[in-house]
């Protein structure tokens, strides 16, 4: 579907070693999932309800935020990512995501939307507001 391999992207912030990057990135991505679920939980608590469709909406909003706000600033944050304006350098060789992450494959935006929506649906369906 997409080359937007999040563990690899996160891991290469810390190391250029492909295998180690994937390992580090996997744990970071896993931890991120837990952290973000707290944001979802906060939203459910504020709204006093948790349903699958509400989770889906929050997931969708997060996906749109990632695609339009996070990905464009990634080259500025990632120490090994090349910049659109200056091209690759010896240190910064990683391909930047481009508009809506389209450099990582034409299905990247769809993949991001679907993945976050499913994440929201699961949280919304199983979380019980007390």
């Amino acid at each position, binding site marked *: 579907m*997409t080359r937007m*391999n999040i563990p690899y992207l996160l891991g290469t912030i810390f190391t250029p070693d492909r295998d*180690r990057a994937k390992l580090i990135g996997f744990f970071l991505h896993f931890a991120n999932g837990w952290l973000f679920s707290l944001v979802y939980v906060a939203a459910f608590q504020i709204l006093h309800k948790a349903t699958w469709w509400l989770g889906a909406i929050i997931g969708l909003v997060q996906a749109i935020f990632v695609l339009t706000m996070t990905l464009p600033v990634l080259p500025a944050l990632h120490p090994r990512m090349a910049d*659109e304006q200056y*091209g*690759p350098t*010896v240190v910064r060789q990683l*391909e930047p*995501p481009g508009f809506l992450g389209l450099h990582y494959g034409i299905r990247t935006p769809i993949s991001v939307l679907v993945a976050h929506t499913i994440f929201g649906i699961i949280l919304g369906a199983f979380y019980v507001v007390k």
Partner: protein
Amino acid sequence: MRAEVSKIQDYAIIGNGRSAALISNRGSLDWLCWPRFDSASIFGAILDAKTGGYWSIRPAGAAKIRRQYIDNTNVLETTFSIGSGKMVVTDFMPVTSEEEKKRRLWPEHEIIRQIRCDEGETSIVVDFDPRLDYGGIVPKIKNAGKFGWRIDIGTNVFTLRSEVELVPSDGDGLSAKFTLKSGDVVAFSLTFSAEAPGVVPPLDKLATEKLNLTIDWWRQWAAQSNYHGPYERHVTRSALVLKLLSYAPSGAIVAAPTTSLPERIGGDLNWDYRFAWLRDASFTLHALFGLGYKDDAEAFVDWLLHATRLTRPELRVVYDVFGERPPPECELPQLRGHRGSRPVRIGNAAIEQVQLDIYGEVVEAVSHFTRKSRKLDRDMQKMLRQCAEYVCEHWYQPDNGMWEERDERRHYTHSRLMCWVALDRILDMQARGQLDGISIEKCKAERQRIREEIEMRAWNSNLGAYAQACGSHEIDASALLLAYHSFEDASSQRMRQTHERIRERLVPRLGLVYRNERSMNRHEGAFAVCSFWEADFLARGGKLSEARKVFEAALAYANDVDLFAEEIDPETGDALGNFPQGFTHLGVINAALALRDCEGGTVGFKS
């Protein structure tokens, strides 16, 4: 689009232990499959100059061409001399140590083509015209600005970067025309990414640094060889070819990096060799251990054990690089074949065949391993027990034989020989205390029955030779392997007579040997590895001077960078079949080892 067609021997190979590319002596990259040997091609002009796709770098006029590998490496240098100008194209796939890869991002796959002007001024023409999926897809090449030119296909991306301006050409590709002056250097880099965001390397100094790292890596690998003997240059090149044919992530060694290069120009004997054949196993281990490449030998044995695990006790004739079943054989109608040799096939139907010789190959390979390396672990012992049991039960059955004849199954002498080898080596390992749990009496009895069968039924007294099959009247060069595998002394009366018949019937001229009479009738070329079997046979029989003559005559058929295809056209000396062929290069190494050892008196017949 271009019309020029190169011959098979016009090519040289570069690679990185995962895939390989063939580059012609005109500077055209005409074969590349990414990400692995058996993936679909992105450049396939070797199979169809019009629609296969190519990437050419050449001077803008007729030039004198000379090429070579940088000493003890797989880095190719092609020198074009035109008037007072001289330019050198250096082609390589970057390789380096794992430590170096941890220091900096490396693309998943990359080819670098660096152009250096050494003298005067040279006008250069570059044409980049890829065709994906074996010429079936004309890709859209998008300008990605500072990130070069991109081809997005599914989740995969190819990125071409260069230090000169590329523009869309009249066709569907890109082109560039520019002039270099003495001392100028420019580079092109083509990368491929499939699993993660691409790594897009800068060129300039980094390309030169990668070149130096690649040269160092190959030289360090080549220096692991402990071979110091006759024909060292050819032995080293053959070892480097074998290393290029090995798939580093698994240890598998593919037979050749190409498909459907014809065994007869204009004919239909076109097969896909981008898989690993068990038939080559014992030759491979003998060569790797013989040269001192212990790590590579161990990686190959590990692959062997892994690949065969799911099918034991039955073994498949051929596996893919991860030990899976190769895809079914099919034809590619969009490609017209090398010099019109249709059809182009991918996949290989040999997977459906029965070849009993492979049991001997595998057991012999493990036997080399235990002689030179570690002890037998439980898994190896289990495999050997299964092989012993299987061979005892099935050795008398007909099969398709080592040459994979597709017409009918026969009682091939070579298959019998290898069944004998399987039991003989298993009994040896048992006697050395490395293996238990086999039925010794049964193995000994069956080994003796196989010997009697070969001596009585494969020996044809009218012919005065060991025949191709039991009861057959045909000669086959594989009979020379009776001596190689120590079934019979090379200087015995029968083996000398067999060699004489082979000389009479299968040798069109010194240094060339047809594999058998059937292949002659099919107008195939002489089978290159058989020439080296003959040299090996003569060396084992004590005829060292004759062995050297045969060996040198055969070496003369290598191309300008010492590469061999599967076959040689006896009329023209042209290379035929898939290229470069691992089996032939194994023959070069093993014959050289035999010559060295026989001259040193360390090879003898084990009675």
